[in-house]
């Protein structure tokens, strides 16, 4: 990718978000903007939004990142996954008067449960890397429905119509993809076994 500046890792982006939380680091913001804003726009465009809507959402997502940097917990989420969730909420709210983002804000504020899970939380970036790898190895028919669900934001019923497949087939492909993903993460420490 040209014009994309130096290669940076999840860890670097995570530090930049923390730096905003801790000292309102504007240089970090500019850097995060240059990396994520075009990607968010690209993702939103794939939902069928206009270029203007996509840029609005990307811009708003970056401002949300700035305001809510303190909610980013590098032990809990990789930066890309966290930014995805912000953009997803804004995309949903494009048609829903900001309510989804408000509900999400309530959930984010739930107090963490103390000493519940120290070991498996140290590896959010490792989890992200595993998921990236697992996605590369999904069979194409599973990758297709995952993409339609997560990037295009299509409900299972819509996917079934678009692909002219029975709803049950769409669901089972997604379910299989989630199983593979879980397997890819299985050996990373999980909380207590029920």
């Amino acid at each position, binding site marked *: 990718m040209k014009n994309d500046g130096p290669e940076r890792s999840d860890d670097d982006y995570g530090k930049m978000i923390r730096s905003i939380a801790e000292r309102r680091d504007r240089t970090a913001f500019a850097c995060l903007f240059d990396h994520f804003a*075009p*990607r968010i726009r*690209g993702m939103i465009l794939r939902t069928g939004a206009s270029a203007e809507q996509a840029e609005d959402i990307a811009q708003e997502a970056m401002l949300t990142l700035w*305001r809510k940097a303190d909610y980013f917990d590098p032990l809990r989420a990789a930066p890309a996954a966290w930014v995805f969730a912000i953009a997803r909420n804004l995309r949903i709210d494009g048609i829903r008067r900001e*309510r989804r983002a408000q509900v999400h804000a309530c*959930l984010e504020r739930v107090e963490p449960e103390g000493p519940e899970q120290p070991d498996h939380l140290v590896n959010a970036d490792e989890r*992200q890397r595993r998921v990236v790898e697992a996605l590369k190895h999904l069979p194409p028919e599973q990758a297709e429905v995952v993409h339609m669900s997560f990037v295009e*934001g299509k409900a299972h019923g819509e996917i079934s119509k678009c692909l002219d497949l029975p709803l049950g087939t769409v669901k089972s492909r997604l379910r299989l993809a989630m199983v593979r993903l879980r397997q890819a993460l299985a050996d990373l420490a999980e909380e207590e076994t029920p």
Partner: protein
Amino acid sequence: MRPIHHPSDLLLAEYAAGSLDEASALIVSAHLALCPHCRRAVADFECIGGALLEQVGGGGFDTQRRGQAVTAISADLSQQPVPRRDLSVADSIEAMIDVYGRGPWRWIGPGVYHRRIDLEDNGVRAFMLRGAPGTELPDHSHSGTELTLVLKGEFSHELGRFGVGDMEAADGGIRHAPRIGNEECICLVAMAGTIRLRGLLGRLIQPFVRL
């Protein structure tokens, strides 16, 4: 106490993808507030979104808009970072429901009260139900999917016991007759379609129940 009955991975993935209807998403959000295990699962599924976001690739961005954003963070007081403030689980769930607003509790049958939540999306409605201790709800079935999350107390039926934080997903066609436990039970429900009551009691009260 941790919940025992969880949403399926498929439902959590749909939530993480952002393709779930809003009423169901509210019920899942409330379950997540109560369930660290499912919060972890959703975080893992959001990694899929993160990975696909990275794959979309970069490119330029409107420089004027970039400038606006940088100006906003420097100058606009409403855009300043807010320090994290935690909420208790109960307050978080109350606040989620308050995002939509709700009506008063209304009697809908012996020992059963209904409270509207002003939320309907794609034919799925959200509401609250409250049952008095020991109440047996009439045998009923659903025409669509129903998600029920216990906020207080417990109920049980053929498929098990559901306590605080437990979520039941009943598909259309499932028939059950829940019984409320020994204390008052309050549930948050997302329902597609309508409830069909069965039995004599059900037929008697059906005209009053507009669920």
